[in-house]
């Protein structure tokens, strides 16, 4: 099995790197490329870049390239990927995989077929126990669709925990693991401490993504990696 990854998430609003709270309030956290440089220097396992602007704007490809050029590590890009063509452009620009929202199942399915399962991360955004924006759908619905689309991995976010650093939604992670024993799941939303990351792994996550904890505390991705190593998980040294 590959090592457990600790994945910082960088959000971009078109001008600066930002951090959201519950997918809403945004705070400016500095220059985008500087974030890439800092994380590159910190020897991260992987980085997620999310462009929050609506629509696959023409300068997006350029942003991906400039960001990827700073990073000798895998880059996962998300933000308005709605088709295989969008996905292909993002990969060509320097991303290693794309995040496709569960609202765009067809795009996820086609991209997995065309560019390979490992190129697709399927984003499931939960608001409590229902899917954000489609409240008639629950976690199991979304996960079954992920399996059907043959995506490589799921990015599972509890949006109520986004930016508040009170811990991952471990019940959500455990529920997802119970539905899909073999699916690779990246836990996201809520990480505020090293223990939170360890708890997410114990609940059944395959990898952990986080943002605020790296922006507003002294904790680095390596600190979390080291703690996971001590807890018995395989991590990069």
């Amino acid at each position, binding site marked *: 099995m*590959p090592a457990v990854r600790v994945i910082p998430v960088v959000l971009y609003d078109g001008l600066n790197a930002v951090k959201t709270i519950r997918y809403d309030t945004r705070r400016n956290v500095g220059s985008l490329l500087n974030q890439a440089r800092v994380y590159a220097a910190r020897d991260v396992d992987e980085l997620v870049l999310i462009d929050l602007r609506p629509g696959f704007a023409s300068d997006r490809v350029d942003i991906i390239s400039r960001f990827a050029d700073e990073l000798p590590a*895998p880059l996962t890009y998300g933000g308005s990927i709605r088709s295989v063509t969008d996905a292909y452009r993002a990969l*060509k620009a320097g991303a290693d995989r794309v995040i496709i929202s569960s609202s765009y199942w067809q795009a996820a399915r086609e991209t997995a077929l065309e560019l390979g399962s490992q190129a697709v991360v399927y984003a499931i955004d939960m608001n409590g126990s229902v899917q954000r924006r489609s409240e008639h759908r629950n976690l199991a619905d979304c996960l079954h669709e992920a399996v059907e689309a043959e995506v490589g991995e799921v990015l599972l976010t509890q949006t109520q925990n986004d930016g508040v650093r009170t811990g991952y939604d471990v019940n959500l992670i455990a529920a997802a693991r119970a539905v899909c024993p073999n699916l690779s799941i990246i836990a996201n939303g809520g990480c505020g401490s090293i223990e939170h990351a360890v708890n997410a792994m114990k609940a059944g996550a395959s990898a952990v993504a986080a943002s605020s904890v790296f922006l507003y505390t002294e904790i680095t991705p390596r600190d979390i990696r080291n703690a996971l190593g001590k807890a018995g998980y*395989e991590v990069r040294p």
Partner: protein
Amino acid sequence: MIVHVVDLGGNTRSVITALSRLGVRAEVTNTGADIETAERIILPGQVTFATAMRVLDPLRGAIASALTGGAALLGICAGMQALFEDSEESPGILGLGFLAGRVTKLPVPHFGWSEVHFRAFVAGMEYIARPMRHFYFAHGYAKRYEGADHDGIETVATINYDTGTSPNMVAAVQRKRISGVQFHPEKSQAEGLKLLDRWVRDGVIVNE
């Protein structure tokens, strides 16, 4: 020294960027005349076997001439798979055939950082600092490792893919000046860059 990177249709940019980090000049080319006279040729990955071979098929002669002239060839990911005879991914399509055997489908795609075990007899890995290192992988097909006795392909590194303790997937190969890595050195942080640097300088990833 200029490294010629063949554009197979995938992410050539990451390879070029990694080389420029090392201060190495790289040129993207799909032209036989460039490749014939090249000293270092890289086949990057992130494409299907068929897509890679569509580009490489017309370049067979040029690559062979370059190798005869002393060039070094490095295949990365799908670029390494193209060194073999064929692949389950694209039945009926012939690979470059420099190495014996067939690339087969993995039960689940392999994604992430895995510990690569360089074979004990391999000298010259001191630059990697330790015989085992994590490198970044992203692929759905692979060359299975069947053990040293059945290994006619000069496997120099393996990983324990779906078994805990025994090597069962080829991570790196080398036959004279033909090398291949299943992982992505251009995305494997400092260790990956060291491996690329070594290959650019010496034309091999490990000592023969």
